[in-house]
């Protein structure tokens, strides 16, 4: 998030898109609803599904999945034409506006309606509501990013915020809600193919030298590595021989599960470190028992760059070991130096010494203050509630021209429905933890697919009956939930359930830059089971 969870309450207008906030980030959802209902902040929701937030919104735009560039460009076009753009902010703090202005001019309300299905008058109301707000915040999640045009969607959100001057102040910003407790931290720590900790790129020799000196090694690669989906393809081709997977379950979480299983089986060696024998661990040659969050000390970094302590409550279960201990012991066994730490606090000291945005973070400060929001550059730095105040990190805020493109796989005669996937309120990701939590499993014990009532009637399917879903990648069977949460032609399936695994169906087409798969759109056929 450019801003903080807390300052969402200072917004005059909140635009939520591609985030089922009340189910997936309920505590943030509550805060947004409080801003809306108690302070009168305007609430705009753009989502293909009639989620709970859509019911509360002042305005609900029901766009076709994957059409986000079109309606976001369309909003900008109206804002510019209505003289609601922040000319001073654009002139002083950004570059690229003229090109964007020229491009969005082609996204007239009728063009946008044709691409996105959003009625012209509703688009206009949304543009005025967002454009007239003194402080407007954009909130999004994977509904924006999990597309072959995901990067363009994010750039369109950033353009909209920049042309209205909605960055660098409390109650504004471009605010992705991160779906995992420490996905922000894993990125910050350089568990990414192109960056060392703190986003210091591996292709810059200065950074490589810095880390080689600190780690006492030579020969760190300057070649950007393979992303998770590329690793799977390289494993299938035999180029990657061995994989080490810590705490991830790609068999259920990656697109096109059948392909993932084949690729992992093609490896010469698969090592999985996890707390349960997940669907991925079942394929491993060696399984190492790690520890849950309750059995170790450490830190997690939340969606608003908030670093907080994780504290050990109980000793490791059985002979399991904390994941940091396992990494250190294996590295030492292989002859690596620099893996003899007494505690996670000591590891954080090394992180802080090499990562400028974490330089002021220490366990002592976290114990005393509860949290620190990065950038936190010195021991005196109180941290940063919102980014880009006065100046962007790169100097001027860069606006990018983005154009609408169809998703990679659109419905056709053979596969006439669009499938979109996600989570529900009771389960988390591949369910390895929540499906083993008795109360959560009791609330939502089986897979299902949301089907519009008219589509269900045509198929001859009643609520609660089993349906078969087929795509070009595979088929699953799940219970039909006949509901107007989804419009005609769209079905939704959660990916938590191994026995009705939505990712058997999904399309492994990637955004060319971020390499994020298009989980939110693929073509399927429905049949009564």
């Amino acid at each position, binding site marked *: 998030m450019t801003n903080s969870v807390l300052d969402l309450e200072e917004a005059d207008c909140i635009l939520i898109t591609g985030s089922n906030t009340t189910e997936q980030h309920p505590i943030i959802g509550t805060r947004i609803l409080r801003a809306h209902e108690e302070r009168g902040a305007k609430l705009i929701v753009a989502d293909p599904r009639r989620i709970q937030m859509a019911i509360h919104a002042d305005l609900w735009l029901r766009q076709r999945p994957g059409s986000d560039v079109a309606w976001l460009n369309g909003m900008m076009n109206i804002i510019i034409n209505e003289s609601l753009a922040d000319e001073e902010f654009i002139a002083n703090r950004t570059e690229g506006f003229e090109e964007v202005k020229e491009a969005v001019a082609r996204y007239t309300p009728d063009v946008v309606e044709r691409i996105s299905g959003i009625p012209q008058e509703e688009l206009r109301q949304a543009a005025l509501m967002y454009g007239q707000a003194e402080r407007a915040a954009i909130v999004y999640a994977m509904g924006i990013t999990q597309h072959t045009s995901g990067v363009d969607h994010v750039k369109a959100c950033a353009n909209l915020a920049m042309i209205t001057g909605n960055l660098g102040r409390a109650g504004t910003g471009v605010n992705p809600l991160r779906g995992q407790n420490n996905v922000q931290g894993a*990125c910050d720590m350089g568990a990414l193919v192109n960056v060392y900790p703190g986003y210091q790129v591996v292709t810059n020799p200065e950074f490589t030298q810095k880390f080689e000196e600190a780690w006492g090694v030579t020969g760190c690669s300057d070649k950007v590595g393979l992303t998770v989906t590329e690793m799977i393809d390289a494993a299938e081709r035999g180029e990657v021989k061995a994989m080490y997977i810590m705490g991830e379950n790609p068999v259920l979480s990656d697109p096109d599960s059948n392909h993932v299983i084949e690729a992992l089986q093609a490896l010469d060696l698969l090592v999985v470190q996890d707390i349960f024998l997940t669907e991925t661990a079942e394929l491993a040659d060696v399984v190492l028992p790690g520890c849950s969050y309750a059995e170790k000390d450490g830190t997690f970094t939340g969606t608003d760059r908030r670093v907080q302590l994780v504290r050990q409550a109980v000793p490791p279960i059985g002979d399991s070991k904390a994941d940091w201990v396992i990494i250190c012991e294996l590295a030492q066994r292989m002859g690596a130096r620099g893996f003899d730490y007494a505690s996670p606090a000591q590891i954080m000291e090394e992180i802080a010494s090499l990562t400028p945005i974490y330089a002021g973070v220490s366990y002592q400060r976290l114990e005393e203050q509860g949290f620190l929001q990065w950038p936190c550059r010195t021991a005196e730095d109180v941290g940063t509630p919102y980014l880009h105040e006065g100046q962007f990190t790169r100097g001027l805020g860069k606006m990018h021209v983005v154009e609408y493109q169809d998703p990679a796989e659109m419905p056709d005669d053979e596969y006439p429905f669009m499938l979109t996937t996600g989570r529900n309120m009771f389960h988390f990701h591949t369910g390895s933890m929540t499906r083993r939590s008795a109360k959560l499993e009791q609330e939502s014990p089986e897979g299902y697919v949301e089907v519009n009532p008219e589509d269900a009637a045509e198929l001859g399917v009643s609520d609660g009956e089993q349906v078969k879903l087929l795509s070009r990648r595979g088929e699953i069977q799940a219970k039909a939930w006949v509901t107007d949460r989804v419009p005609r032609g769209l079905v939704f399936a959660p990916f938590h359930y191994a026995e009705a695994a939505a990712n058997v169906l999904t399309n492994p087409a990637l955004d060319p830059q971020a390499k994020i798969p298009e989980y939110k759109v693929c073509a399927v056929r429905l049949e009564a089971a």
Partner: protein
Amino acid sequence: MEYRNVLTTCPYCGTGCALYLQVLDGSVVGTLPVKGHPISEGALCIKGWNAHGFIHHADRLTKPLIREQGQFREAGWDEAYNLIADRFSSFKSDFGPDSLAVLSSAKCTNEENYLLQKFTRAFLGTNNVDHCARL
């Protein structure tokens, strides 16, 4: 009987809610919200209230497992470490560092993510390290 509340951070989404794990005689038996926390303000969602639910589940892995003739058997840590160390070293020397790939975890701590990318970059010699941020 020994009872403690341990202040920690929720293991589910990225909101960053605080919670207390209720620990009775060495077992986590429940979850409580934290009134004074700036993000969660004494509230939790249904997953947060159940953040203790899986910790002592009977399915927890308690020993390393090694596959032998298609079946897993329990092994000691030394045997598992030696097997991984030998095989990874020989892949690295036979096929080069980029024949190895590592997935780190958005469920693990910052310190663990830091160490796994350090191990991958500094010792294995490849940037083939990623996690589920894209998924």
